[in-house]
């Protein structure tokens, strides 16, 4: 009986890991769509997502409105506040639009391949995250979906499969623009895969493994500055000269693999209408759209894990976090209160923006800043009053109840680890958005020259130089970890 339970328990743990890693990627996607719009608006000085609101009715009207809902009458009310929430509502309306638009299947497409292409694109993008660790261990369980020996090679294999979605979409759409988009995508991705794989070899050499867990673990060790100062948990690969060059090459190749500007030739709208997804509408288009963002998230999380320590928090090694979990909880809990108060002040000050003097005085949008000030003040109050004490007491009670003294420390390490990874991923994604709205697209020959004549030789040379340095250091100073 207990054996059976253990086996079922294993399945549950595996399932939870899968759900988490898919959820991690899918939760960031809407945030990125919003970030892309805001980024475009700020960088190119054009209107951002500033329309779609949610109207909040006066609480006194709610009984009448409930009656209207039950009687299926149209809802008519004067809102007391109209929330645009910095444009976040736009993402919501986007989803509604994409889900309810007419799903057109043109007559001339190759049906089977046309249907599976977006599914392939999306599922491959989600699979790739399987080997990225989002923490070291939690109660003895590894924190990633699969602990296969392949590690980063699995990521490279999966990204190389991702091209099938785009190729099949382009080919099965049966028109010359889509076909050209698909051909461009396949040529581009095959070309940049080599540079991507070779630049990662430097990281393999310094960690002595291709497993992303091992690579992240090595980067959690202290960074030694000429043997004089030791900075804890900052042995990131990007701080070594070979690692830095490898990072630049890997990051450029990641842009090419995700088809982001300046490498977005497969969908170059000036030449190819919409490229490989010209014929797609409604949710099939949404799948391609989400796959692009999922690929961005996976590319940045792999880059973060390879070069920026992955789940490691700078200056706090996992051991330190476990040891001082209570102290950290206190600092973070108390630190949140001033942060929330600052947000409240910022929200209050937004009343002075020219927008609010342009719209009519009785416009429900006038109340937006006040509403958010109240929200942040409430958050600060709730957090200050019961948050810190409640969290700390709750954590201690939970550890005692489960008879697991290490639970609190592990929980803290996991939460901080996931947060650190998420912050690094978001910074990476923001750089991708920033680049997209700043630089123009490559010409095709420039793209091929950069891939084959610049990046490939640089990556190869980097591998040889790094390998030579590691051997030389071994000869001079004897065996030592890190790089």
């Amino acid at each position, binding site marked *: 009986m207990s054996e059976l339970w253990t086996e079922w328990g294993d399945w549950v743990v595996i399932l939870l890991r899968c759900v988490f890693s898919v959820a991690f990627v899918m939760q960031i996607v809407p945030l990125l769509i919003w970030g892309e719009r805001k980024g475009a608006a700020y960088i190119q000085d054009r209107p951002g997502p500033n329309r779609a609101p949610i109207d909040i009715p006066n609480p006194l009207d709610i009984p009448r409105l409930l009656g209207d809902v039950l009687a299926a009458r149209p809802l008519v009310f004067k809102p007391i506040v109209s929330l645009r929430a910095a444009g976040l509502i736009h993402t919501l309306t986007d989803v509604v639009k994409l889900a309810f638009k007419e799903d057109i299947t043109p007559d001339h497409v190759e049906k089977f*391949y046309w249907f599976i292409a977006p599914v392939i694109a999306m599922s491959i993008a989600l699979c790739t995250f399987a080997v990225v660790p989002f923490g070291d261990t939690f109660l003895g369980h590894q924190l990633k979906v699969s602990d*296969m*020996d*392949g590690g980063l*090679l*699995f990521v*490279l*294999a*999966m990204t*190389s*499969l991702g*091209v*099938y979605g785009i*190729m*099949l979409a*382009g*080919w099965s759409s049966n028109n010359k623009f889509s*076909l050209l988009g*698909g*051909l461009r995508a*396949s*040529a581009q*991705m*095959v070309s940049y*895969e080599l540079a991507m794989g070779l630049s990662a070899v430097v990281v393999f050499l310094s960690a002595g493994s*291709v497993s992303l867990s091992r690579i992240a673990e090595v980067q959690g060790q202290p960074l030694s500055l000429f043997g004089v100062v030791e900075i804890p948990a900052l042995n990131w690969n990007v701080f070594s000269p070979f690692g830095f060059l490898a990072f630049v090459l890997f990051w450029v190749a990641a842009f090419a693999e995700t088809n982001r500007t300046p490498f977005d030739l497969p969908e170059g709208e000036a030449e190819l209408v919409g490229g490989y997804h010209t014929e797609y509408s409604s949710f099939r288009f949404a799948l391609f759209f989400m796959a692009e963002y999922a690929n961005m998230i996976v590319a940045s999380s792999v880059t973060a894990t390879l070069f920026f320590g992955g789940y490691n928090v700078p200056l706090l090694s996992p051991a330190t976090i476990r040891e001082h979990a209570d102290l950290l909880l206190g600092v973070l809990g108390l630190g949140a209160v001033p942060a929330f108060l600052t947000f409240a002040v910022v929200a209050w000050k937004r009343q002075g923006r020219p927008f609010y003097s342009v719209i009519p005085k009785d416009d429900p949008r006038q109340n937006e800043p006040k509403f958010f000030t109240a929200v942040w003040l409430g958050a600060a109050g709730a957090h200050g009053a019961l948050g810190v004490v409640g969290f700390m007491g709750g954590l201690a009670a939970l550890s005692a109840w489960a008879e697991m003294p290490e639970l609190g420390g592990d929980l803290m390490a996991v939460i901080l680890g996931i947060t650190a990874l998420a912050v690094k991923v978001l910074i990476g994604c923001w750089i991708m958005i920033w680049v997209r709205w700043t630089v123009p697209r490559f010409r095709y020959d420039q793209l091929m020259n950069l891939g084959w004549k610049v990046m490939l030789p640089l990556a190869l040379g980097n591998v040889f130089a790094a390998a030579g340095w590691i051997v030389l250091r071994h000869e001079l100073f004897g065996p030592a970890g890190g790089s």
Partner: protein
Amino acid sequence: MTESVLFYLFSLLAVVSGASVILQRSTIASALSLVVCFFALAADYVMLDAHFVAVVQVLVYAGAIMVLFIFVIMLLNIREPGATPVGTLSNRGIIGLMAAALLGVALIAGLDGLVHTPVTAINVDLQGGQPAYGTIAAMGEELFRGNYLLPFEAVSLLLTVSMVGAVVLAKREV
């Protein structure tokens, strides 16, 4: 238990997609069946603890070589299937069958030899602190320090020669 069920499922998928490669009439369907076949084989390799071979199978065959195949098919835009009737044996078919039979005999003979070898002889010693069989470390030891250094270098030289040859042949036209 679960692993053996999955192993046979993926083996079945490999056989079915392998058959589909030669039975499909449309070129692109054949090529994609081959991709599925490679994928199923990679899954089988994982079940056999050969993670490295599995990943390289997907990375090189499914991810690079087949992409180029499909690239060419798409570029030439071969949509109409050829008019070869299925069911009649041409000369080529007979030669193909003979080649397949020869390969089968060779495989069975090879497997027969393997079955009678004690497992420890194929497997790297698991207890002696050696890297486990099928991992990247074990593959590296075998290829660069073990018995296969000369064949490995010879093959890489051969590949370089063929690449240079291809470039020379293609450049002559321009």
